[in-house]
Every structure is written in C-alpha cells, then in structure tokens.
C-alpha cells in the first residue's frame, strides 16, 4: 500500500510540473498576429503549381501575385486592382482570345522581375502530365498561351466564352528557380514546402506539417504593407475543438464554424468578445427529380445533335406534379431543422451572392393546398390508404441521399413528412456517397438530395448542369434529363454574348431562372450560410462574402 501511495504522489507531482509549463504564447512585435485554425489536414504544399485545395490556397494567396483582382463589393473580377498582375485586358472579336497587359514593376523577393515567362511556365506545366499537376485541367479550356513580350500575355480559349478572363488565371511562379528541374521532379522540390522566393503581402515563415504554417509581414511589398506581424494558420482537425479554441481566444479568426455551433459564436458576439459576419454562401442543396424513364436511361441528344426519346418518368414527367412537390415542401422549416436557421433560400438555380441572380424572383411559397389542387389537376386522387393514385399507380417513390451527411438526412426527413401531408409516399434511403454518384450518373433513380459547391467569383453558366449536351448517361451532370432548347439557347447566348456586358447577360440569366422555377428540374432549397468571425481584439475586420481578407493589410491585433 505504501508503494501505491508513493507512486500516486509521484504522479501528482508530475502532473503539477506539467501544468506549470508555459502554454502557447505569442508575445511578438506590435501589430499582433492573426491566428486562424483550419479544419482538415492543413496545407502541404505552397507551390501554386501544385496547390489544389482550400488549405494551401489560403497561404498561396498571401505569398504570390495573381493575374486578376476582384472587387469585394461586386463579388467579381474587375480591372485596375493594383495588386493584380493584369491591369487591363482586351477580348478579341470572336470572344476566344484575351490579351492581358501586365504590371512591369513587380519583382520576386530575390530581385528577379516578374514577367510573362512566370505565367508561361505554369502553362508548360499544365501541358506536361509527368509533372502530376492539377493545372492540367486548364488544357481542357485553353488552347494556347503566348507572350509576345515580357509584359503581354495572349491567352486563346477553345471556345468563345465570357468566362475567358476568369478561366485564364494560371498562377505566376518564380520560374527562374525551376528552369533546370526535370518536370517529374517539380513536385518533390524543397521549395514546395519552403517557398523562400515569393512576392506577396506576407513572406513565408515556418511550416510544420499537420500543425501550423506561419507567414511574416513582407516589408518589401510594394503596395500597402500589412500592419500585423504575421499570420498563423494552424491545423485543428476536430471541429468541436476548433470552435472551443476560438471561443477561448487561442485563435482569433474563424471561417465557417459548423452550423450547430454558430449560436455559440453569436452569443460571444452579443457578449462583445467576438465579431461575427454571416452571409449567403456558395454551397447549395437541392432535390433532383428525374424527368426521364429511369428504367431505360438515354442520352439527351444523339451524335448529330438530334433529341432522343427518353421516355417520361411515371411521376415526375408531369410539370404539374413537380410544381405540386415544390409547393408541398416547407423550405423554411428545413432551414431551421437541417442547418439551425443558417441557410438562405434560393428561388431558382442561382446562388444569392451571384451577380446573375434575379433579385425580383421570389421563392415559391409553402402552400400545401395549392399542391393538392395541382396534383388533382394532374389526375392524382387519394386512394384507400390516403396515398394518391392514378390509373392504378400509387404515388410512391424512392428518395436517396448520402449517408453520413446529417444535414441532408434532416432535409430528407422533412421532405418525406411534407409530402406525406399531401398524399405522397416517400421511401427515404441513405446510401453511400459513391453509390449515389453512380446511381445518378447512370440516371436510374427517382429523386435524390445532394449539393453543389460554386466557385468564387461565381460563374452563372450552368451548361454542365442543364444543357441537353450534358445529358449523357454515365458521365453528364444533367442527370435529371431536363430538356429545354430555349434554355440551351439562352445559356449559350449568355456565355458568348459579344462584349460580355454584365447587365445584358444578367437579363438572359434572369430569363433562365424564371423558366427553371416553372419547370423545376431541381426543387431549389437553400445555400448554407457562411460565417466569418474574429475576436474583438482584431481591428479592421470588415469582411464581404468570400472575401474575409480583402482589407487584411489594415488589420491589427491588440494583445
């Protein structure tokens, strides 16, 4: 027993010594440090040639100059942003070629001028598969990149597109460092995790894999310099811990706390310890309804571009039925139940922050009576068990969503209840994500709930989602087989409008949204709101949607 007591005493002393060790401190210079935690694995490359996830993009955007700049208020690419390499550009008559005029006064931190060569190198990498770079995606869009001189870039796209400018944005890299490197060795360079030659607001500090990345103010930055001493991006893979660290002040900026914790962040905001900013985000959930016969999936068009008979879905082939379903679903309740109220309704197919969204188009109201009337008009009568029937067919279908996504599980449950109230029976099934993908790509489903995640700045073009050319069994994303030649025309016109006038394009997209809301290839639901929050010690925090750091150079962090 004495031994046990001795042992316990040693253990207690040990614990006390541990507790007495200093915790994380950041006593640094005067401007303070921005500390953000990221959920997930964290960055693992800082070379823009290889960076392909949000974690490394966060760091890369602080270290490297970009071709284009955005206006946070317009949420779009604009000319004349001082920090952007391209100050001006012209688009050719045919809409395929963009000629960019580059800044001539930027240099890498080792003194080498930043020129068109540094952009051409990225294009070379994109065209070389041995580099294993995801830039290879650009070769699907861009036909050629040329540099008539050191400060002019001519980018020719495969097809005329008003997205030509945004789709030209290959990265600038210090190519003089890579000139002698074999293409298949580029992804093993020490530079990739220690980028010591950069040209951004911050310069590289330290990287500890899976733990943290630190950036230091770059005093050689030719534009307004950062006031903070640095930026630390730490990895906190557990979301509960991530939020707790922010609430405890171990971090001072948070991007997108999980929706079930937003109320805690807001409570802290009410108490004055943090500042929170909510906005309509880019990820949206929808309920897809199959228009075509799921027992015999067919492409939308044949090789010559002629429509193929795809049959009709026994339930959703009827436009009145689709409208009835839309009226029967209480999306506001879904937003409360599935995302704790942290969602913004969509009226049609555009996210609320897109410049192309039709602000005059209201979402369809929740109206079960109208829903019942439409179903009756379509010939569906209540059967003996209360479920609607028509010509001996019961109105019953299978609704899928991916297992493990609690938000979509909640949506599905409410949809099932809402539709039961108008006499529709839903067999709601949770299946593996990849099985679901195979199911919808093969177009052998009735209905499913899933989401899309739009980029920023948002491209309103949805050719991949709704054009008849994308209705390809096995690979296309128009898996509901929505077939509307007028919509195809409008999308094409809006994407290749000569001059690409934004207001004119917005009108065309507004027309598409009206048709979408009437024909309902998806029942649109909501975007999940984004949230940026900073501790009240962070001064200058004034975010815009998708642009939390647009004015980060003015931020200070008081200790």
């Amino acid at each position, binding site marked *: 027993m004495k031994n046990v007591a001795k042992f316990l005493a040693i253990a207690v002393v040990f614990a006390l010594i541990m507790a007495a060790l200093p915790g994380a401190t950041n006593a640094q210079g005067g401007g303070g440090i921005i500390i953000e935690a990221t959920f997930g694995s964290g960055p693992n490359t800082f070379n823009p040639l290889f960076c392909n996830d949000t974690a490394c993009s966060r760091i890369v955007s602080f270290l490297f100059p970009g071709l284009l700049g955005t206006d946070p208020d317009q949420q779009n690419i604009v000319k004349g942003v001082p920090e952007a390499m391209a100050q001006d550009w012209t688009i050719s008559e045919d809409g395929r070629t963009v000629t960019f005029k580059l800044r001539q006064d930027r240099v890498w931190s080792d003194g080498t001028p930043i020129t068109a060569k540094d952009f051409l190198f990225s294009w070379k990498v994109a065209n070389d598969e041995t580099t294993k770079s995801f830039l290879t995606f650009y070769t699907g869009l861009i036909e050629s990149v040329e540099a008539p001189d050191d400060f002019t870039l001519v980018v020719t796209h495969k097809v005329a597109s008003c997205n030509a400018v945004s789709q030209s944005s290959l990265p600038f890299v210090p190519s003089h460092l890579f000139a002698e490197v074999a293409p298949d060795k580029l992804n093993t360079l020490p530079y990739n995790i220690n980028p010591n030659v950069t040209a951004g607001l911050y310069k590289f500090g330290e990287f500890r894999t899976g733990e943290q990345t630190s950036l230091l103010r770059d005093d050689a930055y030719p534009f307004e310099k950062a006031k903070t001493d640095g930026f630390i991006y730490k990895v906190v893979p557990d979301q509960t811990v991530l939020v*707790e660290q922010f609430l405890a002040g171990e971090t001072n900026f948070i991007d997108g706390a999980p929706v079930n914790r937003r109320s805690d962040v807001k409570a802290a905001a009410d108490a004055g310890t943090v500042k929170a900013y909510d906005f309509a985000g880019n990820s949206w959930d929808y309920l897809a309804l199959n228009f075509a016969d799921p027992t015999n999936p067919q492409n939308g068009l044949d090789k010559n571009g002629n429509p193929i008979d795809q049959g009709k879905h026994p339930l959703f082939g009827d436009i009145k039925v689709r409208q009835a379903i839309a009226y029967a679903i209480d999306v506001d309740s879904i937003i409360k139940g599935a995302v704790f109220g942290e969602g913004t309704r969509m009226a049609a197919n555009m996210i609320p922050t897109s410049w192309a969204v039709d602000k005059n188009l209201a979402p369809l109201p929740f109206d079960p009576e109208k829903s019942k009337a439409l179903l009756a008009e379509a010939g569906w009568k209540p059967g003996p068990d209360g479920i609607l029937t028509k010509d001996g067919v019961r109105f019953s279908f299978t609704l899928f969503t991916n297992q493990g996504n609690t938000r979509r599980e909640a949506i599905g449950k409410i949809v099932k209840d809402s539709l039961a109230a108008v006499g529709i029976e839903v067999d709601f099934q949770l299946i593996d994500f990849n099985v679901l993908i195979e199911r919808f790509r093969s177009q052998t489903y009735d209905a499913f709930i899933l989401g899309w995640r739009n980029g920023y700045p948002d491209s309103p073009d949805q050719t991949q989602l709704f054009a008849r050319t994308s209705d390809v069994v096995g690979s296309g994303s128009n898996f509901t087989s929505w077939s509307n030649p007028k919509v195809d025309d409008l999308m094409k016109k809006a994407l290749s409008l000569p001059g690409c006038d934004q207001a004119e394009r917005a009108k065309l997209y507004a027309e598409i949204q009206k048709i979408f809301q009437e024909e309902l290839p998806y029942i649109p639901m909501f975007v999940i709101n984004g949230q940026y929050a900073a501790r009240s010690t962070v001064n200058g925090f004034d975010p815009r949607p998708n642009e939390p750091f647009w004015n980060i150079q003015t931020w200070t962090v008081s200790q």
Partner: protein
Amino acid sequence: MVKYIARRIVQSIPTLFGITILTWIIMLAAPGGPTGALVLDPNLTPQQRERAAEVLGVNDPMPVQYIRWLIGNDWHWFLGPIDYNFRDRNNDGVPELGTDRGILRGDFGISFANNNRPVLPLFAERLGATLELGFSALLFGLILGVPIGITAAVLRGSPFDNATRVFAVVVNAVPIFWLGLILILIFGANLKILPMGGRCPVVLTGGCPPLYERLNYLLLPTIVLGAGGVAGYSRYLRASMLDVLGQDYMRTARSKGLAERVVWFAHGARNALIPLATFLGPAIAFVWGGAFVTETIFSWPGIGRLTLQSIVAQDYAMIMAVTVFSALATVIGYIISDVLYALIDPRIRFG
C-alpha cells in the same frame, strides 16, 4: 537464434504480400475513387473528370495498377503496345516508361489527396509526432499498469483491487473521443492550465522546442491514449501475478523466511512479467501505426490522422504505404516478441 530469426523473416514475406494484395482488393472494390472529391464542382466537364482519372492512373485494370505499384512501370514493354499508360510527356503517343519505380525500389508513389506530393516524405514528416505520442502512451500504460496489476494481485479482494477492476471496465467503456474532448474542455477551456491540443506552441518563428519544454502538450493525449494500456496491462499483470503467487517456488521462498515484499517483487513480479513480452509485438505496431481518434481530437500531427484522411479521400498510394508500414511493424514486432520471450523464459527454446 540467428537461424530462427532468419527463418521468421523469410516466412513473413508471403504474409506481407498477402496483406498488400488484400488491402489492394478491398480498396479498389470500394465504390468511387480518388476523383470522387471532384464531383461537387458544377462547372467541371466529364472530360475534365476523365482527365483527372487518367493523370492519376486509376483507369488502368486492377492487376496492372497493383503490379505498377509493386515494381513500377518500366516493365510494360513485356505486354507489347499499350494504351493504358498515360504518361506521355512529349504528347507524341509514346508513353515515357520507368517514371514509377514501384515500392520494391522504394517509390511509394504520389498522394492524390495531398496535392500530388510523394508519399514517403509526407509519411516521414508525420512519423516523429506519432512515435513521440505512441511511446509516451506505451510508457504511461506500463509505468502505471504494471504496479497497479501487481498490487491488485497481492491485495486480492481488497478495496484497491476492486477499484482497479472498476477503473478497467470504465476506461474500456468510455469512448476515446469523448474522454479527449472532456479533458480539453476541463483543462484547456475552463481551467486554462493545459493547451487545447497541438504538439508545440503556436509561434511565428522559432520552431518547435525540444520535448521536455512542451510536456504540457503531451500530457492529455498521453493520458487518453495510454488509459486503455493502464487498464489492459493492470488486468493482465494481475492475472499473471495471481498465477505466480500460487506456484511452489513462492511457498519455498516464504519458507526460507524471506520478507513478504521480497517474495512478491523479487520472486513473484519478476516471473509474472514474463508473459508481458508477448505484448511488446503488438505494442510496437500500435506505436508506429498512430492513433486515429486521439491524434484528431488533440490536433496531433501524426500518422493516425494522415491515415484517416487518406481513407476518407480514397488516397490509394497513401493507404497502401500506411498498410505496408503497419504490416511491417507488426511482423517485426512479433519476431522481437518471440525472440524476447525465448531469451527471458528459459523454458522456451528456439525451435
């Protein structure tokens, strides 16, 4: 003994291959693939998705992918003209062969989920953290578990014995993630005496200090990861010790007039510890393989977290690398275990 060890090593080779083939089949049989992450982008064309799959080489037939993983891709001449190797650097229709070396020549490929970085450095970067936490947890388990087990056996039926039994049941029943979160909330968020996860202080410059200056970061994860060991070792030791206490030589020792303490610890515990040697093999694999949940909760940058992320992202190359290393560690661990057992216990001979 050398002959015995050599034979064990040779015997383990087919086991290792069996493990890799099984893992490979299970991995590729799972629906989806590493390009699954691309499906949520509404602007991606089917051609772009297809291209991503080609670049990753996941369109090849399953056996081709396995053999390429094993011995590289400079053997394709054997099959004559080929159309499933997409590494055509010059776009001239002639694929460059030999760019993959295969794991037998030390090339574990590139990690899709980690921006296509080579697997080995990614793995190596994480190893230190995992060994640090794994060994502390193992030590914690042994240092607490062994004395508790022995004492419980000596004081069989006492309140102490019962308390340790309850402790063992509770520890085994409590989910690790819950225990971890609760400890973080109590000591990090409320009492603010320990950091809320991480391995080193968060600093702009200066790097990670030596281990003895950041034991406070190690404490909670060690407790959470080692608690199971304390419970397990103490129960095991108790059983082993009880067995020993009933042996004739214990009675002999007592009859010689030795003090009880000497009997228990010099004669009893020493023999009771022998079966523990068999635990060392699995323990080494455990240390090496990392801890999925503990590393995630405590933001510990180790192999366990890397493995978990690789599985979620269906990152074939990384999953295979982790499997191979874990299998290797397990096999080596068991060989060491057997050798140790034979060395400690004179009743066992190398056969």
